[in-house]
């Protein structure tokens, strides 16, 4: 009898567990983040951004889904080549998520880094007109990000990339930025993300700078 009751209870508990279906947040985020490696086209990023949006819709207190949602849209803006209007439209979407995120974590270095990334993307849409204003805005956001966490490698990367972009535009010598990028790449792995689902991108981009040196 006792056995029966134990079996019964076990069964019930198994049933109940399986009723609480749905992978938990960490797991879903981990799986979704793995999707980055398969993204090649704007459409791929759009699909990935939608996944992050679905997670953000459920997990209203989490800033990371918003972070990645905006991040995908910023990449889409960089990838879009046919229309400057579309480039801005993607950034309009990114900006909404960035703003929501900034309200949740107003002292997060990664949040300011992403904001700087978005502002640089705005600059790239029309450098002639937006150059002055957005280079300052993006520079300030990077500065805040580095102030909050001087080791943040993504903030360091954006800092190098922004200054190098400006130097190239003005035809100035860019060799010192290669040195900085090499240094950053060398120490990249010393920085440990807060968790496996925290931002971890940027190494490839730094590599690109270093490789372009040759």
């Amino acid at each position, binding site marked *: 009898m006792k056995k029966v009751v134990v079996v*019964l209870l076990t069964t019930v508990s198994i049933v109940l567990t399986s009723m609480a279906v749905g992978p938990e947040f960490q797991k*879903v985020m981990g799986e979704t983040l793995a999707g980055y490696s398969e993204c090649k086209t704007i*459409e791929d990023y759009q699909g990935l951004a939608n996944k992050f949006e*679905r*997670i953000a819709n459920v997990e209203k207190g989490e800033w990371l889904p918003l972070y990645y949602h905006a991040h995908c849209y910023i990449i889409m803006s960089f990838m879009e080549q046919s*229309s400057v209007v579309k480039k*801005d439209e993607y950034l309009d979407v990114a900006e909404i998520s960035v703003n929501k995120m900034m309200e949740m974590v107003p002292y997060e270095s990664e949040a300011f880094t992403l904001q700087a990334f978005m502002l640089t993307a705005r600059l790239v849409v029309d450098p002639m007109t937006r150059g002055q204003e957005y280079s300052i805005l993006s520079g300030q956001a990077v500065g805040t990000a580095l102030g909050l966490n001087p080791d943040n490698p993504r903030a360091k990367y954006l800092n190098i990339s922004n200054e190098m972009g400006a130097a190239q535009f003005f035809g100035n010598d860019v060799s010192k930025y290669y040195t900085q990028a090499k240094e950053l790449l060398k120490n990249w792995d010393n920085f440990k993300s807060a968790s496996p689902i925290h931002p971890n991108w940027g190494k490839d981009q730094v590599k690109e700078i270093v490789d372009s040196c040759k």
Partner: protein
Amino acid sequence: MSIYIKNTVIVLVALISCSALMAQSTNIKGVIFDIKNNTLPGANIYIEGTYYGTSSDANGKFSFTTNETGKQVLKVDYIGFEPYRKEVELTGKQINIEPHLKESFNQLKAITIIAGSFEASETKKAVALKPLDIVTTAGALGDISGAMQTLPGTSTIGESGRLFVRGGHSGEAQTYIDGTLVHEPYTTSAPNTAVRGRFNPFMFSGTVFSTGGYSAEYGQALSSVLLLRTNGLQQEDQLDISIMSIGTGVAGTKLWESGAVTASFDYMNLTPYMQLIPQNINWNKYPQSYNGAISVRQKTGKRGLLKTYITYDKSSFSMDQENPDYLPEITNINIDNQYVYFNTSWRGTLNDKWSLKTGVSTTGNLDNNELGFGDYRGQLHGANAKIVLANQISEKINIRFGTEYFYKYSSVKYNYEPYSVHYQLNYTSNMIVGFAEADIYASNKFVARVGGRYEYSDYLKKYNFAPRISAAYKIDDKSQFSFAYGIFFQDPANEYLIYTGKLDFERANHFILNYQTIKENRTFRAEVYYKDYNNLVKYQLTDHLVPTDHNNSGSAYAYGLDIFWRDRKTIRNGDYWISYSYIDSKRNFRDYPCEAIPGFVSKHNFSLVYKHWIGELRSQPGFTFKYSTPRCYNNPNKADFNSESMTPYRTLNVNWSFLYRQNVIIYASISNVTGFKQEYGYNYASFANDEGFYESVPVIPDAKRFYFIGCFITLTKMGEANQLNKLE
């Protein structure tokens, strides 16, 4: 016991089967469309409150499987469209949906009315001009009105330099800074030489140049308004230094947490330049000017900004002039002008629905001129105060209303000792205004603006009511039609009001139809318009040339076509625009004996502006070519009024901007580089000589070409900013 076990088994089976039922999955598939049956790729389809979902593919199709059961809400999100929601019962049976999403309404992305107006702004994306264009246009030399004169609807009047719009006199065009009126927006210049705008274009981040049909918020302008919005809060401390062939300037900005102050000082002296480059004019004292300005920005609360600006100008020169009335004697004239302008404004939101815009401006202008045939002292004090409230009544309706007050005092003293001529005239006028306007959106594609303006002048003892209506319709993503109609009133000019207040407002009616298409970096716009004027001031001249019998019996008409084409795509790193205007206009005003084509109208006006960025040289060279058909002028020796033609106006201006360092820019320009002959008719004597002949002198610029070179340095803590927005 066996029953017990049996029961247990039943419960167990029931539980297991129940769990199997719950784990049963449902497939949801379908296609996402818009209301025009186009498929939408990339839409986000999901079950509300869960992670389950997918995106539509390139053909708008989707399919996903969920383990959820029971009643759920299926949602479809797509940017720019209203979200789709459907309650579904998940039972394991396949669900198929084919929703047609409706475009969502967004005022920021909805159509705007552009009839009559050219906007230069960074915030809006679909604009014909960018703020930088004003300073990088060859020949404009950083003068706002000069840059506007490369747009259709304007005439280049070389001997004046002011804005003349669609057959209207320059006095019919008004300038507003942050919503309030500026009197005397141009510098003082020698007779027959072009003036410049007083205000530095780098002060402004937004410009709207309206050639007609403007909002009920703006009045006291018969033909045109130039609306300038000053910069917001600066982003960092900086020091700007300019060293130019004609003077020098310095400006410093200091920031604090929620505000900033900028102080600037400029000194211009044309002595070295004019000694080097021969001038047609014999100067006794070369033009000199000083300008000092202070501006303060202060954030108030979360969304308010208080702006205050004050500037003082002093300029003077002395020259010899051939006056046809005193030939062969040479007249010596001394010009001295002092100018103070103050503007303070606050704009902010009161709550989610209401926003408030308020401002006060005052102008003081003092001319002390010795004209050879008498001393002239002219004084003008003007003030304008305004409050505008705006409310978003609903998603699709905005209203805006407000009140305005204008004050004007003008006095003129004239003395000519040799003939004991002394006169002194002055007048004061107060005007109160109320206006209201509503923007009504039918959809993203159609908007109508309806408004009206009421004015009462205590000096004229007259009131007027001016209705304004405009609308725009979007044909597709790139193209739109817009239309504007309105009645516009303006006080008669000071030079008449100083003699009498027994006059009525001058009046113009505008009808404008505009087509515009913007595709990527190419803009085409065409506009046709018709204007008719009445109540224009007419007068008679007495034998001593004193105007008398002022009345409102004058009238005029103007109609024409304006074309604008801008292309930043075809030529790599190149950017050009072409403007063409055709106008037919006649008027009967002032002391005209009959209706005639006024002297400030050219039938055909053409301009081409080109800019090219050369990365390797860190340079942007550019040129502007302009051509206008001959204007008329009156030769009193001829029987027909205004029957003589000037030479056509031609000019080719070139400029070159060079970025020496990130924070050092060198800029050079030459106006009329090919030396086209520029002659603006003749000035005739007021009285015939003994042979009954009116003597004359040609109206010509003081030099064939104008050369300019300047170096602009910006110092910041970051050391990387520059005056790129100064001169590219």
